[in-house]
């Protein structure tokens, strides 16, 4: 087992989050320049290139403004070019909202209350609405959870897809159709020439999701946001769609943020994994590290409660699948500290008060937990 307590507070190298540096500095001895460089190296794995997208201390609130419902609180992560980040968490843990925030398409009345999102070196908050629109579908594309609902019911597949090309690339009708057909073939749809004249209701669920994936890839985006793209599908179709994602990842060398609640799915698709609970990030690490050396109590509980083939839950074997005690926090009771504290077997009194700051516990492995040595931060709100 890995050594749990490498007590070294960490801030992401690109981050200029004053609050975290300041409070980290307060509770710990300041780092020397060398150490700082080392930490930075740990996080970005020594790559000189900047990440494609970098989310820093993102906060999303729902009104009322005076006592906002803080659905996403201090989320930070980066995705390097060509890398797939899996974001895992229960439904309602804010993972979908944080990816919609990248597109600046939060459903009303949710609002970005703080933090920065940097994409290809540019702060997205500084962009105009029109600039954002030109980014969407072209540089950043999204695949939605339910393909049955995310295609226009009254437009043919071809019309919907070529419209996007018309908007972004100003392609002539004929060229657009050719490109649409090419992509449909690429995502494994047979006879695309006939399919483009069909309506969504004439296609199966898996087919529709393939169309949605083709739609996302139309303009060759550098980042694809996939929001639970397999959840609403049958298990066998799920496997096919996952396979398709793996194939396309290799082929297009795009970056991807893959949001899911299914540990098994991220295990297949993600290079790095961020585990979220109730709007906070618990732990971020390379995919293999998360499975081999989970540090955060929530990650451990989550892995512990995932059924495996070699376990038999029978009366005779005496084995029962572990569950996480208690129930998820309601919107009404968001404490100031670690939100998992109420269900955490290891929680101490300080956990409910202090929000855990990121701490590097290994190479490219960050955990947010006071019990693993994270610095605590009293609430700022």
């Amino acid at each position: 087992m890995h050594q749990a307590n490498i007590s070294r507070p960490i801030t992401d190298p690109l981050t200029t989050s004053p609050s975290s540096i300041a409070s980290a500095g307060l509770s710990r001895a300041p780092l020397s320049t060398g150490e700082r460089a080392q930490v930075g190296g740990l996080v970005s794995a020594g790559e000189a290139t900047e990440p494609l997208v970098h989310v820093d201390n993102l906060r999303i609130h729902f009104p009322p403004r005076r006592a906002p419902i803080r659905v996403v609180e201090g989320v930070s992560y980066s995705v390097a070019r060509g890398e797939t980040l899996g974001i895992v968490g229960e439904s309602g843990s804010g993972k979908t909202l944080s990816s919609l925030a990248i597109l600046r398409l939060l459903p009303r009345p949710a609002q970005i209350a703080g933090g920065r999102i940097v994409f290809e070196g540019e702060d997205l908050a500084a962009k105009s609405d029109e600039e954002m629109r030109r980014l969407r579908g072209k540089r950043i594309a999204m695949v939605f959870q339910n393909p049955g609902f995310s295609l226009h019911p009254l437009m043919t597949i071809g019309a919907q897809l070529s419209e996007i090309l018309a908007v972004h690339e100003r392609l002539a009708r004929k060229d657009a159709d050719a490109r649409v057909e090419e992509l449909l073939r690429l995502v494994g749809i047979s006879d695309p020439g006939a399919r483009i004249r069909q309506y969504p209701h004439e296609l199966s669920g898996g087919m529709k999701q393939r169309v949605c994936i083709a739609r996302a890839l139309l303009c060759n985006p550098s980042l694809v946001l996939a929001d639970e793209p397999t959840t609403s599908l049958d298990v066998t179709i799920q496997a096919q769609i996952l396979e398709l994602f793996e194939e396309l990842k290799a082929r297009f060398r795009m970056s991807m943020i893959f949001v899911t609640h299914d540990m098994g799915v991220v295990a297949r698709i993600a290079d790095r994994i961020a585990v979220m609970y109730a709007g906070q990030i618990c732990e971020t690490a390379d995919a293999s590290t998360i499975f081999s050396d989970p540090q955060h109590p929530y990650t451990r509980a989550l892995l512990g409660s995932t059924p495996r083939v070699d376990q038999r839950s029978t009366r005779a074997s005496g084995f029962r699948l572990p569950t996480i005690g208690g129930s998820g926090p309601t919107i009404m009771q968001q404490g100031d500290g670690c939100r998992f504290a109420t269900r955490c077997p290891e929680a101490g009194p300080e956990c409910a008060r202090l929000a855990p700051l990121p701490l590097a516990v290994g190479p490219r492995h960050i955990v947010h937990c006071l019990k693993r040595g994270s610095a605590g931060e009293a609430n700022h709100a």
Partner: protein
Amino acid sequence: MRLTIYIVRRLLFAFLLMVGVSLIIFFLVNAVGDPIELMMAETPGVSAETIERMKVHYGLDQDPLTRYFIWLGKLLSLDFGTSIIYNQPVGSLIATWGWQTFKIQVPAILIALAIAIFVGTTAARRQHSRTDFAVMSGALLGQSLPAFFLGILLILIFSYTFDVLPSYGAYSTRGYLWGSVVADGLWHMVLPVAMLAFFNTATLTLLMRSNMVDVLKLDFIAAARASGIPERRVVYRHALRVAVIPVLTYLGLLVGLMLGTAPVTETVFTWPGLGYLYVTAIHQLDYPIIMGASMVIAAMLIAATTLTDIAYVLIDPRIRLE
């Protein structure tokens, strides 16, 4: 193919409805009593001999069932009989007066539809905003404002107080506006059309808004936005296409409502339309007109609902027909 079958079935049902309506109208009018005797009971001093002659003249001496079939047969050849008070063929009366009804109802519905689509969509895009609240309140008020009361208010303001628009009739009785029949006719249409359009707008706007609010929350709208399609296009091309379907379907019902209340709205403006003709006929117990006009109103109503049902299927490819 299934579509053809559906349309044929729908038309058959419409035909059955018409037969049912004709039965109701004929027997209601006749069950109450002999129309000629009823009429004459209110006009004293007509000799029994005259009454007898009139009965023979209007074919009332036969038994009701035979008369029903004779009447139905004549209806099929568009022969509605002869009006007692106007002494003209009911068919041509209905055609001339019906055209006047058409002239105010159709523009009113089109104007209302255009306003409702724009205002309803705007309100839906700013749900819970002040604009939205104003639109909702206005529409709720407008929906409860009885059309004829609105007509009275319009007449008081524009005809009596400011004296800018005529309060009755379809044309001036002496001298046309600018000497032009067309201008005069349009000038007379302003108030009745405004009244009908206002009423339709309120209802259609509420419907449009609530559909649009629902549609804008759907995933495919989020997906269109996430694909970088301009917002105006997302709303007016993608969302509207779906949100407008229930509104169009409702048009059928609305046409029915407007025709059904035409007797009232036309009376307010003394507008020489089908509804006004019907009211006069009822007052005078001119039963060929009563039966003819109500048959025509029923036919238009059934046609409107049937057409919207069929249009609904044609617009929406999702509807699976069994």
